[in-house]
């Protein structure tokens, strides 16, 4: 899969949203809603978006759930919806993201597809 580093979508590639460019720690649902809107804009109607957590040292449950949990729920309900593929996770961020998907009752298949183990 080809990826773009500079948040520029191209028809043959998946755009990449580099979360670490916007901070090192993320706490609130309000912040996640703002970033989710930016990612939707970046995707520009495309199917896949890479969300790169490299360099992010801390994410709260609320942030992870509002960002990845909401995207993941939409994707499970409609596989034509935007698919967030998460990369660059620390152990802490992975633990919280997986916990969010479990609490939303998402299938293991979708959970493994979106959050690498």
């Amino acid at each position, binding site marked *: 899969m080809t990826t773009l580093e500079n948040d520029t979508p191209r028809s043959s590639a998946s755009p990449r949203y580099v979360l670490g460019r916007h*901070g*090192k*720690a*993320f*706490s*609130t*649902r*309000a*912040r996640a809603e703002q970033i989710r809107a930016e990612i939707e804009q970046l995707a520009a109607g495309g199917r896949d978006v890479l969300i790169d957590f490299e360099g992010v*040292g*801390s994410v*709260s*449950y*609320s*942030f992870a*759930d509002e960002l990845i*949990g909401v995207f993941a729920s939409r994707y499970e309900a409609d596989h034509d919806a935007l698919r967030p593929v998460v990369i660059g996770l620390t152990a*802490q961020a992975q*633990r*919280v993201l997986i*916990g969010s998907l479990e*609490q*939303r009752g998402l299938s293991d298949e979708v959970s493994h597809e979106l959050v690498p183990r």
Partner: protein
Amino acid sequence: MELRLSHGAGCRDHGYAAELDADHQDADEITLDASNIAGLHPLFAVRLALWIEKQQKAGRRIDVREPLDETTRRDFRAFRLGRDIGGIDEALGGGEAQVIVRPTRLVELTEVDGLADRLLQPLIDQFDDVAVVRDAVLMAISELCQNGVEHGVGPAGCVVAVSRGEADGLSRIMLGIGDRGIGIPEHIRRSHPEFVVDEHAIGQALEEGVSGTQRDDRGYGFSWVLRETLSSAASSAEMFIRAGEGAFRREIVDARVKDHGWKIAPTRGTWIACEWTTVSRPDR
């Protein structure tokens, strides 16, 4: 008039210091005598900062006698008690090793993210002994301050402070958060009117998925503070909450959770103290 704080006021009930609830409507000037206190929990710093602010807003002149105990006086000064409550730009304790976050007012949710973002690197660089519980501390700040801002009263938001100390030769990280909102029990009863006893309502708020918002995806903040604490290397931890007419304590020792709630005199707002005792030594 003079308000004399007793020896244990800075730590008793995790620094809640019920003396500060007293009404001073007839006083034009108050001398707060803190000379006798020993030990200073960050919740006490939050309580005192808000008390001083309230008196000053009511037009009262406040004269403060600092603690005589050297360690307590150092923390008292490092918390900058007696000065206006700062925002996130002034939050970090800087060179004063025991104070990690001075009493800091958070009004907007973006400030909660801003505080966590500012705090992360100093916690990594400067506080080896915090590293083992860092994820739990940041989860608590994120989730509990978010609640405080969302449920606090308008421009007052919530106030947070963090410090570390020593207990039996081990490091202890302490967090205090206060707001003057409707309080956890009233908030929870918006969607759970059956929780009529305040300490029971607080205890239920700590359970997964219990929220006053009537949304299925809410009500997980407290449980994630617990999960991150259990994932950390804390040798023990404690959360104390006081709101309405209820108090609630959750203790974690050797991964076992023990809860206890009891009735108290009415309290305005929500006051939370968290403590994590680490296996690291404070002199690392």
